[in-house]
Protein backbone atom coordinates (compact mmCIF):
# COMPACT_ATOMS: atom_id res chain seq x y z
CA UNK A 1 0.00 0.00 0.00
CA UNK A 2 1.37 3.42 -0.92
CA UNK A 3 1.84 5.95 1.88
CA UNK A 4 -1.19 8.24 1.83
CA UNK A 5 -0.98 11.94 2.64
CA UNK A 6 -4.22 13.91 2.82
CA UNK A 7 -3.99 17.70 2.94
CA UNK A 8 -6.87 20.03 3.57
CA UNK A 9 -6.97 23.45 2.00
CA UNK A 10 -9.80 25.85 2.83
CA UNK A 11 -11.01 28.81 0.80
CA UNK A 12 -12.20 31.37 3.33
CA UNK A 13 -13.62 34.88 2.97
CA UNK A 14 -16.71 37.07 3.11
CA UNK A 15 -19.97 36.13 1.40
CA UNK A 16 -19.98 36.42 -2.39
CA UNK A 17 -16.26 37.14 -2.67
CA UNK A 18 -15.78 34.30 -5.18
CA UNK A 19 -14.62 31.27 -3.18
CA UNK A 20 -16.88 28.84 -5.00
CA UNK A 21 -15.94 30.46 -8.30
CA UNK A 22 -12.27 29.84 -7.49
CA UNK A 23 -13.00 26.17 -6.98
CA UNK A 24 -15.09 25.92 -10.15
CA UNK A 25 -12.21 27.44 -12.07
CA UNK A 26 -9.66 25.07 -10.56
CA UNK A 27 -11.93 22.22 -11.52
CA UNK A 28 -12.10 23.53 -15.05
CA UNK A 29 -8.42 24.46 -15.45
CA UNK A 30 -6.39 21.91 -13.51
CA UNK A 31 -5.38 18.60 -14.95
CA UNK A 32 -3.60 16.76 -12.18
CA UNK A 33 -3.03 13.06 -12.33
CA UNK A 34 -6.10 12.50 -10.22
CA UNK A 35 -9.17 14.66 -9.79
CA UNK A 36 -12.50 13.65 -8.24
CA UNK A 37 -15.94 15.05 -8.72
CA UNK A 38 -16.49 18.63 -7.64
CA UNK A 39 -19.04 18.57 -4.88
CA UNK A 40 -21.00 21.81 -4.65
CA UNK A 41 -23.50 22.29 -1.87
CA UNK A 42 -25.33 25.50 -2.35
CA UNK A 43 -28.76 27.00 -2.15
CA UNK A 44 -30.81 27.86 -5.21
CA UNK A 45 -29.29 31.35 -5.32
CA UNK A 46 -25.72 30.05 -5.42
CA UNK A 47 -24.86 30.71 -1.79
CA UNK A 48 -22.72 27.96 -0.34
CA UNK A 49 -24.69 26.17 2.36
CA UNK A 50 -22.25 23.64 3.87
CA UNK A 51 -19.13 23.63 1.72
CA UNK A 52 -17.80 22.86 -1.73
CA UNK A 53 -15.17 20.19 -2.09
CA UNK A 54 -12.79 19.20 -4.85
CA UNK A 55 -10.36 16.32 -4.32
CA UNK A 56 -7.19 16.26 -6.42
CA UNK A 57 -3.95 14.37 -6.06
CA UNK A 58 -1.22 12.26 -7.56
CA UNK A 59 0.41 8.97 -6.91
CA UNK A 60 4.06 8.16 -7.24
CA UNK A 61 4.73 4.58 -8.28
CA UNK A 62 3.47 2.39 -5.51
CA UNK A 63 5.04 4.46 -2.71
CA UNK A 64 3.14 7.70 -2.26
CA UNK A 65 -0.47 8.81 -2.64
CA UNK A 66 -0.96 12.55 -2.11
CA UNK A 67 -4.49 13.92 -1.88
CA UNK A 68 -5.51 17.53 -1.60
CA UNK A 69 -9.05 18.28 -0.54
CA UNK A 70 -9.99 21.78 -1.52
CA UNK A 71 -12.90 23.16 0.50
CA UNK A 72 -14.83 26.41 0.48
CA UNK A 73 -16.71 27.69 3.49
CA UNK A 74 -20.06 29.50 3.43
CA UNK A 75 -19.19 33.21 3.67
CA UNK A 76 -22.48 34.40 5.08
CA UNK A 77 -22.09 35.57 8.65
CA UNK A 78 -24.80 33.30 10.06
CA UNK A 79 -22.95 30.11 9.06
CA UNK A 80 -20.16 30.62 11.54
CA UNK A 81 -20.35 27.24 13.21
CA UNK A 82 -20.21 25.54 9.79
CA UNK A 83 -17.17 27.64 8.87
CA UNK A 84 -15.47 26.62 12.05
CA UNK A 85 -16.18 22.92 11.44
CA UNK A 86 -14.84 23.10 7.88
CA UNK A 87 -11.78 24.98 9.07
CA UNK A 88 -10.86 22.40 11.66
CA UNK A 89 -7.63 20.53 10.88
CA UNK A 90 -6.91 22.67 7.82
CA UNK A 91 -3.35 22.55 6.47
CA UNK A 92 -3.60 25.74 4.47
CA UNK A 93 -5.99 28.64 3.93
CA UNK A 94 -6.72 30.82 0.92
CA UNK A 95 -8.47 34.00 1.91
CA UNK A 96 -10.58 35.34 -0.94
CA UNK A 97 -11.25 39.05 -0.40
CA UNK A 98 -13.67 41.08 -2.48
CA UNK A 99 -11.88 44.02 -4.16
CA UNK A 100 -15.01 46.13 -4.45
CA UNK A 101 -14.72 49.37 -2.47
CA UNK A 102 -17.94 48.77 -0.58
CA UNK A 103 -16.79 45.35 0.58
CA UNK A 104 -13.71 46.36 2.57
CA UNK A 105 -15.49 46.28 5.90
CA UNK A 106 -16.77 42.78 5.16
CA UNK A 107 -13.24 41.67 4.25
CA UNK A 108 -11.91 42.93 7.56
CA UNK A 109 -14.69 41.32 9.57
CA UNK A 110 -14.19 38.03 7.77
CA UNK A 111 -10.41 38.10 8.22
CA UNK A 112 -10.84 38.67 11.91
CA UNK A 113 -13.37 35.86 11.98
CA UNK A 114 -10.80 33.63 10.30
CA UNK A 115 -8.20 34.43 12.94
CA UNK A 116 -10.79 33.79 15.63
CA UNK A 117 -11.97 30.49 14.27
CA UNK A 118 -8.45 29.28 13.58
CA UNK A 119 -7.70 29.96 17.19
CA UNK A 120 -10.82 28.10 18.29
CA UNK A 121 -9.86 25.00 16.32
CA UNK A 122 -6.34 25.12 17.72
CA UNK A 123 -4.58 26.75 14.78
CA UNK A 124 -2.61 29.98 14.56
CA UNK A 125 -3.14 32.50 11.78
CA UNK A 126 0.49 33.57 12.13
CA UNK A 127 1.74 30.09 11.40
CA UNK A 128 -0.67 28.36 9.07
CA UNK A 129 0.21 28.61 5.35
CA UNK A 130 -2.08 31.39 4.15
CA UNK A 131 -2.47 33.27 0.89
CA UNK A 132 -4.63 36.38 0.50
CA UNK A 133 -6.33 36.87 -2.83
CA UNK A 134 -8.07 40.09 -3.86
CA UNK A 135 -10.72 38.96 -6.30
CA UNK A 136 -12.98 40.70 -8.81
CA UNK A 137 -10.19 42.85 -10.22
CA UNK A 138 -12.23 42.99 -13.45
CA UNK A 139 -14.70 45.38 -11.82
CA UNK A 140 -14.22 49.15 -11.80
CA UNK A 141 -15.08 50.39 -8.34
CA UNK A 142 -12.31 48.50 -6.58
CA UNK A 143 -9.53 49.20 -4.08
CA UNK A 144 -6.43 50.45 -5.86
CA UNK A 145 -3.29 48.35 -5.91
CA UNK A 146 -1.45 51.23 -4.25
CA UNK A 147 -3.82 51.12 -1.31
CA UNK A 148 -3.53 47.37 -1.03
CA UNK A 149 0.24 47.68 -0.99
CA UNK A 150 0.09 50.28 1.78
CA UNK A 151 -2.18 48.08 3.84
CA UNK A 152 -0.61 44.70 3.31
CA UNK A 153 3.03 45.06 2.30
CA UNK A 154 4.28 44.92 5.88
CA UNK A 155 2.19 41.88 6.73
CA UNK A 156 3.29 38.27 6.60
CA UNK A 157 0.87 37.70 3.76
CA UNK A 158 2.47 39.98 1.22
CA UNK A 159 2.48 39.73 -1.75
CA UNK A 160 -1.23 39.37 -2.33
CA UNK A 161 -2.61 37.75 -5.45
CA UNK A 162 -4.93 39.87 -7.58
CA UNK A 163 -7.51 37.83 -9.42
CA UNK A 164 -10.63 37.67 -11.44
CA UNK A 165 -11.98 34.27 -10.60
CA UNK A 166 -14.87 34.87 -12.95
CA UNK A 167 -12.43 35.11 -15.84
CA UNK A 168 -10.09 32.49 -14.47
CA UNK A 169 -7.29 35.00 -13.86
CA UNK A 170 -5.05 34.52 -10.84
CA UNK A 171 -6.85 31.42 -9.64
CA UNK A 172 -4.08 28.94 -10.44
CA UNK A 173 -1.49 31.46 -9.28
CA UNK A 174 -3.20 31.77 -5.90
CA UNK A 175 -3.34 28.01 -5.56
CA UNK A 176 0.30 27.71 -6.57
CA UNK A 177 1.33 30.35 -4.03
CA UNK A 178 -0.46 28.40 -1.31
CA UNK A 179 1.28 25.17 -2.33
CA UNK A 180 4.63 26.98 -2.12
CA UNK A 181 3.88 27.99 1.43
CA UNK A 182 2.45 24.59 2.27
CA UNK A 183 5.35 22.53 0.94
CA UNK A 184 7.89 23.11 3.75
CA UNK A 185 5.51 21.86 6.44
CA UNK A 186 4.49 18.79 4.43
CA UNK A 187 8.09 18.07 3.53
CA UNK A 188 9.11 18.26 7.13
CA UNK A 189 6.29 16.05 8.32
CA UNK A 190 6.53 13.40 5.61
CA UNK A 191 10.01 13.72 4.16
CA UNK A 192 8.75 14.37 0.64
CA UNK A 193 12.13 15.10 -0.86
CA UNK A 194 14.11 12.71 1.30
CA UNK A 195 11.93 9.62 0.89
CA UNK A 196 10.18 10.24 -2.36
CA UNK A 197 12.43 12.65 -4.21
CA UNK A 198 9.64 15.18 -4.43
CA UNK A 199 11.09 18.65 -4.08
CA UNK A 200 9.09 21.82 -4.17
CA UNK A 201 9.05 22.30 -7.92
CA UNK A 202 7.89 18.73 -8.49
CA UNK A 203 5.21 19.15 -5.83
CA UNK A 204 3.98 22.35 -7.50
CA UNK A 205 4.19 21.04 -11.03
CA UNK A 206 2.28 17.87 -10.33
CA UNK A 207 -0.52 19.68 -8.54
CA UNK A 208 -0.91 22.75 -10.75
CA UNK A 209 -0.64 21.01 -14.07
CA UNK A 210 -3.24 22.51 -16.41
CA UNK A 211 -5.30 21.28 -19.32
CA UNK A 212 -3.74 21.70 -22.76
CA UNK A 213 -6.64 23.78 -24.04
CA UNK A 214 -6.45 26.31 -21.19
CA UNK A 215 -3.55 28.58 -20.59
CA UNK A 216 -5.16 31.32 -18.65
CA UNK A 217 -3.22 32.36 -15.61
Amino acid at each position, binding site marked *: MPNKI*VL*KIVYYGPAMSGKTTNLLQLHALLDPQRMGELMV*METRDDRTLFFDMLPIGFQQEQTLDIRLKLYTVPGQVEHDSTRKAVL*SRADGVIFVADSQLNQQENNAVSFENLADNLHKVGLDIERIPLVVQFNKRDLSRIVEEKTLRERWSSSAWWPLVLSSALKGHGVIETFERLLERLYPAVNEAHGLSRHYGIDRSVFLERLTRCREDHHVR
Partner: protein
Amino acid sequence: MYDDREELSLDELLPPAQVTRAMILLTNLCGAEIVLLRHPEAQATPVEFSLEPVAWLKSDLPIPQRRAAAALLELLLFHAAKYRLAANLHLTATEANYQELQQQHAALQASEARYRLLSESLQERVDSQVRTIRESQQKLYESARLRAVGQLAAGMAHEINTPIGFISSNLRTAQEYLGEITESAEAESNLGELIEDFHSLLEESLDGANRISGLIRDIRLFANIDQTDHRHFDLNALIETTLRLLQPDLATPDTVTLRLDRLPRIPGYPAKIGQAIHNALTNALRSLGDEGKVVVTTRPVDDMIELTVQDNGHGMSQEVRERAFEPFYTTREVGMGSGLGLPVILDVVTAHHGRLNLTSEVGQGTCLTLWLPIAGQAS
Protein backbone atom coordinates in the same frame (compact mmCIF):
# COMPACT_ATOMS: atom_id res chain seq x y z
CA MET B 1 -16.23 13.81 16.04
CA TYR B 2 -16.27 13.12 12.35
CA ASP B 3 -12.87 13.49 10.71
CA ASP B 4 -13.09 14.52 7.09
CA ARG B 5 -9.62 13.18 6.36
CA GLU B 6 -10.87 9.64 6.74
CA GLU B 7 -12.59 8.57 3.61
CA LEU B 8 -16.12 7.31 3.98
CA SER B 9 -16.57 3.56 3.49
CA LEU B 10 -19.23 2.07 1.25
CA ASP B 11 -21.45 1.26 4.21
CA GLU B 12 -21.19 4.78 5.51
CA LEU B 13 -22.13 6.18 2.13
CA LEU B 14 -25.06 3.91 1.37
CA PRO B 15 -26.93 1.53 3.68
CA PRO B 16 -26.34 -2.14 2.73
CA ALA B 17 -29.99 -2.65 1.77
CA GLN B 18 -29.69 0.16 -0.78
CA VAL B 19 -26.44 -1.29 -2.08
CA THR B 20 -28.12 -4.65 -2.58
CA ARG B 21 -31.01 -3.00 -4.39
CA ALA B 22 -28.63 -1.06 -6.61
CA MET B 23 -26.74 -4.25 -7.48
CA ILE B 24 -29.96 -6.05 -8.44
CA LEU B 25 -30.96 -3.13 -10.65
CA LEU B 26 -27.51 -3.02 -12.26
CA THR B 27 -27.60 -6.78 -12.87
CA ASN B 28 -31.02 -6.51 -14.43
CA LEU B 29 -29.92 -3.57 -16.57
CA CYS B 30 -26.82 -5.27 -17.86
CA GLY B 31 -28.43 -8.66 -18.30
CA ALA B 32 -25.54 -10.41 -16.58
CA GLU B 33 -24.65 -11.00 -12.99
CA ILE B 34 -22.53 -8.32 -11.32
CA VAL B 35 -20.97 -9.09 -7.94
CA LEU B 36 -19.93 -6.36 -5.55
CA LEU B 37 -16.60 -7.02 -3.80
CA ARG B 38 -15.33 -5.23 -0.76
CA HIS B 39 -11.72 -6.11 -1.47
CA PRO B 40 -9.77 -5.73 -4.70
CA GLU B 41 -9.41 -8.72 -6.99
CA ALA B 42 -7.75 -9.08 -10.33
CA GLN B 43 -10.06 -8.23 -13.20
CA ALA B 44 -12.49 -6.36 -10.91
CA THR B 45 -13.41 -2.76 -11.70
CA PRO B 46 -12.95 -0.29 -8.82
CA VAL B 47 -15.79 1.96 -7.67
CA GLU B 48 -14.36 5.22 -6.33
CA PHE B 49 -15.57 7.97 -4.12
CA SER B 50 -13.40 11.02 -3.74
CA LEU B 51 -10.34 9.33 -5.28
CA GLU B 52 -10.74 6.36 -2.94
CA PRO B 53 -11.86 2.92 -4.15
CA VAL B 54 -14.72 1.82 -1.88
CA ALA B 55 -15.81 -1.35 -3.76
CA TRP B 56 -15.07 -3.48 -6.80
CA LEU B 57 -17.37 -4.92 -9.42
CA LYS B 58 -16.79 -8.39 -10.74
CA SER B 59 -18.63 -9.62 -13.81
CA ASP B 60 -18.25 -11.38 -17.10
CA LEU B 61 -19.52 -8.27 -18.85
CA PRO B 62 -17.32 -6.55 -21.38
CA ILE B 63 -15.10 -3.86 -19.87
CA PRO B 64 -16.96 -0.79 -21.16
CA GLN B 65 -20.22 -2.08 -19.69
CA ARG B 66 -18.53 -2.95 -16.45
CA ARG B 67 -17.07 0.56 -16.33
CA ALA B 68 -20.48 2.05 -17.01
CA ALA B 69 -21.95 0.02 -14.19
CA ALA B 70 -19.18 1.24 -11.86
CA ALA B 71 -19.69 4.84 -12.99
CA LEU B 72 -23.42 4.62 -12.34
CA LEU B 73 -22.74 3.29 -8.86
CA GLU B 74 -20.22 6.09 -8.33
CA LEU B 75 -22.83 8.63 -9.33
CA LEU B 76 -25.19 7.14 -6.81
CA LEU B 77 -22.53 7.19 -4.10
CA PHE B 78 -21.56 10.77 -4.91
CA HIS B 79 -25.04 12.04 -4.30
CA ALA B 80 -25.50 9.89 -1.25
CA ALA B 81 -22.17 11.28 0.01
CA LYS B 82 -23.36 14.84 -0.39
CA TYR B 83 -26.06 14.21 2.16
CA ARG B 84 -23.78 12.13 4.38
CA LEU B 85 -21.02 14.76 4.42
CA ALA B 86 -23.45 17.60 5.03
CA ALA B 87 -25.05 15.64 7.85
CA ASN B 88 -21.68 14.86 9.42
CA LEU B 89 -20.60 18.46 9.18
CA HIS B 90 -23.86 19.63 10.66
CA LEU B 91 -23.40 17.22 13.55
CA THR B 92 -19.84 18.37 14.12
CA ALA B 93 -20.87 22.02 14.10
CA THR B 94 -23.77 21.37 16.44
CA GLU B 95 -21.62 19.39 18.85
CA ALA B 96 -18.97 22.10 18.81
CA ASN B 97 -21.64 24.70 19.52
CA TYR B 98 -23.00 22.61 22.33
CA GLN B 99 -19.55 22.14 23.81
CA GLU B 100 -18.87 25.83 23.52
CA LEU B 101 -22.14 26.51 25.32
CA GLN B 102 -21.21 24.07 28.04
CA GLN B 103 -17.81 25.68 28.41
CA GLN B 104 -19.42 29.09 28.61
CA HIS B 105 -21.80 27.72 31.17
CA ALA B 106 -18.92 26.25 33.17
CA ALA B 107 -17.01 29.53 32.92
CA LEU B 108 -20.08 31.39 34.09
CA GLN B 109 -20.49 29.07 37.02
CA ALA B 110 -16.83 29.46 37.88
CA SER B 111 -17.04 33.23 37.83
CA GLU B 112 -20.25 33.10 39.82
CA ALA B 113 -18.46 30.97 42.41
CA ARG B 114 -15.60 33.45 42.46
CA TYR B 115 -18.00 36.32 43.09
CA ARG B 116 -19.77 34.35 45.79
CA LEU B 117 -16.42 33.75 47.47
CA LEU B 118 -15.53 37.40 47.12
CA SER B 119 -18.83 38.52 48.59
CA GLU B 120 -18.39 36.08 51.45
CA SER B 121 -14.97 37.45 52.25
CA LEU B 122 -16.40 40.94 51.90
CA GLN B 123 -19.06 40.07 54.44
CA GLU B 124 -16.34 38.73 56.71
CA ARG B 125 -14.36 41.95 56.39
CA VAL B 126 -17.44 44.04 57.07
CA ASP B 127 -18.17 41.92 60.13
CA SER B 128 -14.65 42.33 61.43
CA GLN B 129 -14.79 46.10 60.84
CA VAL B 130 -18.07 46.24 62.70
CA ARG B 131 -16.46 44.29 65.54
CA THR B 132 -13.55 46.71 65.61
CA ILE B 133 -15.88 49.69 65.68
CA ARG B 134 -17.96 48.12 68.45
CA GLU B 135 -14.84 47.43 70.47
CA SER B 136 -13.56 50.97 70.12
CA GLN B 137 -17.02 52.28 71.01
CA GLN B 138 -16.93 50.10 74.06
CA LYS B 139 -13.54 51.53 74.98
CA LEU B 140 -14.82 55.05 74.55
CA TYR B 141 -17.78 54.17 76.70
CA GLU B 142 -15.49 52.79 79.37
CA SER B 143 -13.28 55.84 79.28
CA ALA B 144 -16.32 58.11 79.51
CA ARG B 145 -17.31 56.22 82.60
CA LEU B 146 -13.86 56.56 84.04
CA ARG B 147 -13.98 60.27 83.38
CA ALA B 148 -17.31 60.49 85.16
CA VAL B 149 -15.87 58.65 88.10
CA GLY B 150 -12.92 61.05 88.09
CA GLN B 151 -15.24 64.06 88.09
CA LEU B 152 -17.15 62.51 90.94
CA ALA B 153 -14.02 61.91 92.92
CA ALA B 154 -13.07 65.57 92.50
CA GLY B 155 -16.51 66.65 93.69
CA MET B 156 -16.30 64.28 96.58
CA ALA B 157 -12.93 65.58 97.62
CA HIS B 158 -14.43 69.07 97.79
CA GLU B 159 -17.42 67.77 99.66
CA ILE B 160 -15.32 65.90 102.17
CA ASN B 161 -13.14 68.94 102.66
CA THR B 162 -15.88 71.05 104.21
CA PRO B 163 -16.85 68.78 107.11
CA ILE B 164 -13.21 67.92 107.62
CA GLY B 165 -12.60 71.69 107.83
CA PHE B 166 -15.11 72.37 110.53
CA ILE B 167 -14.37 69.16 112.33
CA SER B 168 -10.76 70.13 112.71
CA SER B 169 -11.58 73.76 113.61
CA ASN B 170 -14.11 72.53 116.20
CA LEU B 171 -11.65 70.11 117.57
CA ARG B 172 -9.11 72.94 117.90
CA THR B 173 -11.67 75.03 119.72
CA ALA B 174 -12.47 72.03 121.88
CA GLN B 175 -8.81 71.86 122.72
CA GLU B 176 -8.85 75.51 123.84
CA TYR B 177 -12.06 74.84 125.77
CA LEU B 178 -10.44 71.97 127.47
CA GLY B 179 -7.67 74.36 128.56
CA GLU B 180 -10.25 76.79 129.88
CA ILE B 181 -12.12 73.91 131.55
CA THR B 182 -8.94 73.08 133.30
CA GLU B 183 -8.58 76.72 134.46
CA SER B 184 -12.26 77.01 135.44
CA ALA B 185 -12.07 73.78 137.29
CA GLU B 186 -9.66 75.66 139.44
CA ALA B 187 -11.95 78.73 139.65
CA GLU B 188 -15.09 76.54 139.69
CA SER B 189 -17.03 79.16 137.75
CA ASN B 190 -18.96 78.79 134.38
CA LEU B 191 -18.18 75.08 134.22
CA GLY B 192 -21.69 73.83 133.40
CA GLU B 193 -22.02 76.13 130.35
CA LEU B 194 -18.69 75.16 128.90
CA ILE B 195 -19.36 71.48 129.19
CA GLU B 196 -22.69 71.91 127.41
CA ASP B 197 -20.99 73.71 124.53
CA PHE B 198 -18.36 71.06 124.47
CA HIS B 199 -21.08 68.46 124.06
CA SER B 200 -22.61 70.14 121.05
CA LEU B 201 -19.23 70.62 119.47
CA LEU B 202 -18.53 66.98 119.71
CA GLU B 203 -22.00 66.19 118.33
CA GLU B 204 -21.39 68.42 115.36
CA SER B 205 -18.08 66.78 114.76
CA LEU B 206 -19.73 63.43 114.98
CA ASP B 207 -22.33 64.51 112.45
CA GLY B 208 -19.58 65.71 110.14
CA ALA B 209 -17.82 62.43 110.49
CA ASN B 210 -21.08 60.58 109.69
CA ARG B 211 -21.57 62.65 106.58
CA ILE B 212 -18.09 61.79 105.47
CA SER B 213 -18.65 58.12 105.98
CA GLY B 214 -21.99 58.37 104.08
CA LEU B 215 -20.26 60.05 101.20
CA ILE B 216 -17.56 57.50 101.21
CA ARG B 217 -20.20 54.74 101.05
CA ASP B 218 -21.76 56.43 98.05
CA ILE B 219 -18.42 56.78 96.35
CA ARG B 220 -17.74 53.16 96.92
CA LEU B 221 -21.05 52.21 95.42
CA PHE B 222 -20.35 54.34 92.46
CA ALA B 223 -16.79 53.22 92.18
CA ASN B 224 -18.27 49.76 91.91
CA ILE B 225 -19.32 50.85 88.46
CA ASP B 226 -17.04 48.38 86.70
CA GLN B 227 -18.36 45.53 88.72
CA THR B 228 -20.67 43.65 86.34
CA ASP B 229 -22.80 42.26 89.08
CA HIS B 230 -26.26 41.21 88.04
CA ARG B 231 -28.73 41.23 90.91
CA HIS B 232 -32.07 42.55 92.13
CA PHE B 233 -31.76 46.11 93.31
CA ASP B 234 -33.76 49.11 94.52
CA LEU B 235 -33.98 51.63 91.69
CA ASN B 236 -35.16 54.46 93.97
CA ALA B 237 -32.20 54.01 96.31
CA LEU B 238 -29.89 54.08 93.30
CA ILE B 239 -31.45 57.35 92.14
CA GLU B 240 -31.03 58.88 95.58
CA THR B 241 -27.42 57.80 95.79
CA THR B 242 -26.65 59.15 92.35
CA LEU B 243 -28.27 62.45 93.19
CA ARG B 244 -26.21 62.77 96.34
CA LEU B 245 -23.10 62.33 94.25
CA LEU B 246 -24.22 65.20 92.04
CA GLN B 247 -24.94 67.48 94.98
CA PRO B 248 -21.93 69.76 94.23
CA ASP B 249 -23.38 70.42 90.73
CA LEU B 250 -26.70 71.66 92.06
CA ALA B 251 -27.39 75.40 92.06
CA THR B 252 -29.68 75.09 95.07
CA PRO B 253 -30.60 72.07 97.18
CA ASP B 254 -34.08 71.94 95.65
CA THR B 255 -32.94 72.11 92.03
CA VAL B 256 -33.81 68.42 91.72
CA THR B 257 -37.12 67.09 92.96
CA LEU B 258 -37.62 63.35 93.39
CA ARG B 259 -41.13 61.88 93.09
CA LEU B 260 -40.49 58.21 93.60
CA ASP B 261 -43.34 55.65 93.81
CA ARG B 262 -43.01 52.48 95.77
CA LEU B 263 -41.27 50.03 93.45
CA PRO B 264 -40.49 46.35 93.44
CA ARG B 265 -36.83 45.47 93.23
CA ILE B 266 -35.81 44.91 89.65
CA PRO B 267 -33.12 42.68 88.19
CA GLY B 268 -30.17 44.19 86.36
CA TYR B 269 -26.73 45.72 86.67
CA PRO B 270 -27.07 48.48 89.28
CA ALA B 271 -23.68 49.93 88.38
CA LYS B 272 -24.72 50.35 84.75
CA ILE B 273 -28.17 51.70 85.58
CA GLY B 274 -26.51 54.09 88.04
CA GLN B 275 -24.27 55.30 85.22
CA ALA B 276 -27.32 55.85 83.01
CA ILE B 277 -29.11 57.82 85.75
CA HIS B 278 -25.95 59.81 86.37
CA ASN B 279 -25.69 60.68 82.68
CA ALA B 280 -29.37 61.60 82.47
CA LEU B 281 -29.14 63.87 85.51
CA THR B 282 -25.89 65.45 84.32
CA ASN B 283 -27.43 66.21 80.92
CA ALA B 284 -30.49 67.71 82.59
CA LEU B 285 -28.47 69.81 85.01
CA ARG B 286 -26.21 71.14 82.28
CA SER B 287 -29.17 72.31 80.24
CA LEU B 288 -30.61 74.37 83.06
CA GLY B 289 -30.82 78.17 83.15
CA ASP B 290 -30.90 80.32 86.30
CA GLU B 291 -34.30 79.18 87.54
CA GLY B 292 -33.82 75.64 86.28
CA LYS B 293 -35.49 72.69 87.89
CA VAL B 294 -35.26 68.96 87.33
CA VAL B 295 -37.96 66.50 88.30
CA VAL B 296 -37.24 62.79 88.55
CA THR B 297 -40.14 60.37 88.83
CA THR B 298 -40.50 56.63 89.01
CA ARG B 299 -43.63 54.48 88.90
CA PRO B 300 -44.60 50.99 87.87
CA VAL B 301 -46.43 50.80 84.55
CA ASP B 302 -47.70 47.31 83.67
CA ASP B 303 -44.68 45.03 83.72
CA MET B 304 -42.22 47.91 83.47
CA ILE B 305 -40.85 50.61 85.65
CA GLU B 306 -41.04 54.03 84.15
CA LEU B 307 -38.33 56.52 85.06
CA THR B 308 -38.54 60.08 83.83
CA VAL B 309 -36.01 62.86 84.07
CA GLN B 310 -37.68 66.11 83.14
CA ASP B 311 -36.00 69.50 83.03
CA ASN B 312 -37.13 73.01 82.09
CA GLY B 313 -33.77 73.85 80.52
CA HIS B 314 -33.00 75.15 77.06
CA GLY B 315 -34.15 71.97 75.25
CA MET B 316 -33.05 70.61 71.91
CA SER B 317 -33.85 71.53 68.33
CA GLN B 318 -35.12 68.79 66.07
CA GLU B 319 -31.68 68.49 64.47
CA VAL B 320 -29.96 68.03 67.80
CA ARG B 321 -32.62 65.59 68.92
CA GLU B 322 -32.16 63.50 65.81
CA ARG B 323 -28.42 63.27 66.31
CA ALA B 324 -28.43 63.04 70.09
CA PHE B 325 -27.76 59.30 70.01
CA GLU B 326 -24.70 59.52 67.79
CA PRO B 327 -21.68 58.58 69.90
CA PHE B 328 -19.72 61.78 69.26
CA TYR B 329 -22.42 64.30 68.83
CA THR B 330 -22.31 67.11 71.33
CA THR B 331 -23.54 70.67 71.50
CA ARG B 332 -21.18 71.51 74.27
CA GLU B 333 -17.82 73.06 73.72
CA VAL B 334 -14.93 70.78 72.96
CA GLY B 335 -13.51 69.45 76.22
CA MET B 336 -16.78 69.83 78.09
CA GLY B 337 -17.87 66.30 77.45
CA SER B 338 -17.58 63.64 74.83
CA GLY B 339 -21.26 63.67 73.99
CA LEU B 340 -21.56 60.06 75.00
CA GLY B 341 -24.31 60.70 77.55
CA LEU B 342 -27.31 59.60 75.56
CA PRO B 343 -25.70 56.76 73.60
CA VAL B 344 -24.51 55.22 76.86
CA ILE B 345 -28.03 55.47 78.32
CA LEU B 346 -29.41 53.83 75.21
CA ASP B 347 -26.82 51.05 75.46
CA VAL B 348 -27.65 50.37 79.08
CA VAL B 349 -31.41 50.42 78.53
CA THR B 350 -31.08 48.11 75.52
CA ALA B 351 -28.91 45.72 77.50
CA HIS B 352 -31.72 45.53 80.06
CA HIS B 353 -34.34 44.96 77.34
CA GLY B 354 -35.88 48.26 78.17
CA ARG B 355 -37.03 51.19 76.04
CA LEU B 356 -36.25 54.85 75.92
CA ASN B 357 -37.99 57.99 74.71
CA LEU B 358 -36.73 61.50 74.30
CA THR B 359 -38.95 64.54 73.87
CA SER B 360 -37.58 68.01 73.78
CA GLU B 361 -38.55 71.48 72.73
CA VAL B 362 -36.22 74.44 72.38
CA GLY B 363 -36.76 76.77 75.35
CA GLN B 364 -39.22 74.36 76.97
CA GLY B 365 -36.94 71.66 78.25
CA THR B 366 -36.34 68.01 77.79
CA CYS B 367 -37.99 64.87 79.06
CA LEU B 368 -36.15 61.57 78.98
CA THR B 369 -38.23 58.49 79.80
CA LEU B 370 -36.78 55.03 80.45
CA TRP B 371 -38.78 51.84 80.83
CA LEU B 372 -37.08 48.90 82.52
CA PRO B 373 -38.73 45.47 82.78
CA ILE B 374 -39.71 44.35 86.27
CA ALA B 375 -39.20 40.66 85.47
CA GLY B 376 -35.91 41.13 83.75
CA GLN B 377 -34.11 38.98 81.25
CA ALA B 378 -31.07 41.23 81.15
CA SER B 379 -28.06 39.82 79.39
